[in-house]
């Protein structure tokens, strides 16, 4: 007979594979959870199911073709990716972008932020079980997609920027439609808040879940709403203004406790700030050209540069090396916010329950296309 004297055996840990095909891992994220009952003991985040080699691919495309590839990274905020890339190249080539183009870029970036946050809000609420919010949020996202369609003809992968400015000026009447949308949207944000912010169940599901302190957030390298939710007022739009943000009035919302609820509140406030920025940008839209002085053949001088902007998910940075000889970059590297934010997941979900895992994946708002690239 086997005796295990003095040794305590614990009930076996249950290993569960969440994803890559799971309805709430927002794509193809795979989280290997080791559970004790329903409590997460530890977890591994496995990524790479959507890797398409965009960075390597870019080294064999010319500078304009890369804009199209950046669409495919964070596909729910394609325009922001475009802006970030174009600005990096402009910085490398020292091209001055006309003021009108910068204003339109700002408006488009903010529209994109609202669209991305709509998708986040819908799926996040859906993960927590409030499925009506999902459809409400998508209803408003639809309006933005219509605006984008009118502007550049595409609804998801816009390819809406060019190095040095914009491919097209805004269509006639577009500015009025955007302002109308702003009016609708500011009502709808209140509607979302009515459904969720003071909802008892929502509070119980999000308050105190996945708390991350400011120091931890900085140590992990979080950016965007997850960082601001922890109370760090870091926003590239304010700290290192690009496009026309230096001429806009807006506040950077920050949280206090760094839990899921604060991240939610921060994003909801960002809706309102974005609407405010769009109103300013559209109402103060200056006249003028939309493309700066750009050479026919884009061939940046030899050198390297890093430039980051504030995407809806955080700091999206482009590091580009040009050898000055060829018409494609020598090295192209992206600092995707989703990827860096995702690093916090194992730390966040440790000790929480399975139900919280989906809430936390939702609360850091990852897009796998950007994580894997």
């Amino acid at each position, binding site marked *: *007979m086997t005796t295990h004297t003095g040794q305590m055996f*614990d*009930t*076996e840990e249950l290993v569960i594979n969440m994803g890559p095909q799971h309805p709430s891992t927002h794509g193809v994220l795979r989280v290997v959870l080791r559970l004790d009952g329903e409590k997460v003991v530890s977890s591994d985040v496995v990524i790479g199911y959507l890797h398409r080699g965009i960075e390597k691919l870019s080294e064999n495309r010319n500078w304009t073709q890369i804009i199209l590839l950046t669409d495919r990274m964070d596909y729910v905020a394609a325009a922001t990716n475009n802006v970030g890339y174009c600005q990096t190249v402009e910085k490398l080539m020292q091209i001055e972008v006309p003021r009108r183009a910068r204003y339109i870029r700002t408006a488009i970036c903010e529209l994109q932020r609202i669209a991305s946050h709509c998708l986040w809000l819908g799926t996040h609420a859906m993960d927590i079980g409030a499925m009506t919010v999902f459809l409400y949020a998508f209803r408003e996202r639809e309006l933005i997609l219509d605006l984008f369609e009118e502007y550049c003809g595409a609804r998801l992968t816009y390819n809406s920027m060019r190095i040095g400015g914009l491919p097209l000026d805004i269509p006639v009447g577009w500015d009025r439609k955007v302002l109308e949308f702003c009016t609708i949207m500011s009502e709808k944000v209140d509607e979302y808040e009515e459904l969720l912010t003071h909802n008892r169940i929502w509070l119980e599901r999000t308050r105190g879940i996945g708390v991350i302190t400011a120091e931890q957030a900085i140590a992990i390298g979080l950016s965007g709403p997850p960082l601001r939710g922890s109370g760090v007022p870091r926003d590239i739009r304010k700290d290192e203004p690009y496009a026309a943000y230096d001429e806009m009035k807006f506040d950077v919302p920050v949280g206090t406790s760094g839990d899921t609820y604060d991240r939610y509140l921060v994003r909801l406030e960002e809706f309102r700030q974005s609407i405010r920025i769009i109103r300013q940008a559209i109402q103060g839209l200056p006249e003028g050209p939309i493309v700066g002085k750009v050479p026919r053949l884009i061939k940046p001088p030899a050198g390297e540069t890093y430039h980051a902007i504030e995407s809806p998910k955080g700091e999206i940075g482009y590091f580009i090396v040009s050898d000055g000889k060829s018409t494609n970059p020598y090295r192209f590297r992206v600092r995707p916010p989703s990827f860096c934010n995702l690093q916090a997941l194992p730390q966040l979900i440790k000790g929480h329950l399975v139900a919280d895992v989906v809430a936390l994946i939702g609360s850091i708002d990852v897009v796998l296309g950007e994580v894997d690239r």
Partner: protein
Amino acid sequence: MAQSIAFYVLSTFILGFAVLVVTTRNTVHAVLFLVLNFLAVAALYVLLTAQFLAVIQVLVYAGGIVVLYLFVVMLVNLKRPPEDHMAPQRHNWIGFGLSALVLVELGAIIGYGAVAPAGPVGAQTSDLALNNVERVGMLLYTDYLIPFEVASMLLLVAMVGAIILAKREL
């Protein structure tokens, strides 16, 4: 007549499922047969006009206690069958012998006992059958109040005891 048929059918179910409970190797299946056995017993109670007890049998036994068994069976996720180890001093025939003895003894008691009278006439419409719940409730809360309270204390103690035993850390 109908009562006889019902009795024999139910008896067959009760005994058949009981045998299956004891002989089945798969513990989950054994638990299922136990449920079926209890349901058949509950039907027998209905036959005996003890409706309240039949309902309690289903509610407490089938719906409560056996679920607990099922939980434990699922929690003790066994890597090896529990029957593979057998103590050397163990002899199964003693078990069969003993139970045969019990059976013979009880059979003898029944056989030598006075010839039982037939069931009471009109039992289906008697007061005990019609107002079953009231009658049993009256007895429970008047003549047997103290045993009833003791039973409730027993359940409370058992509940606390089970929690202390099963919880890893308090």
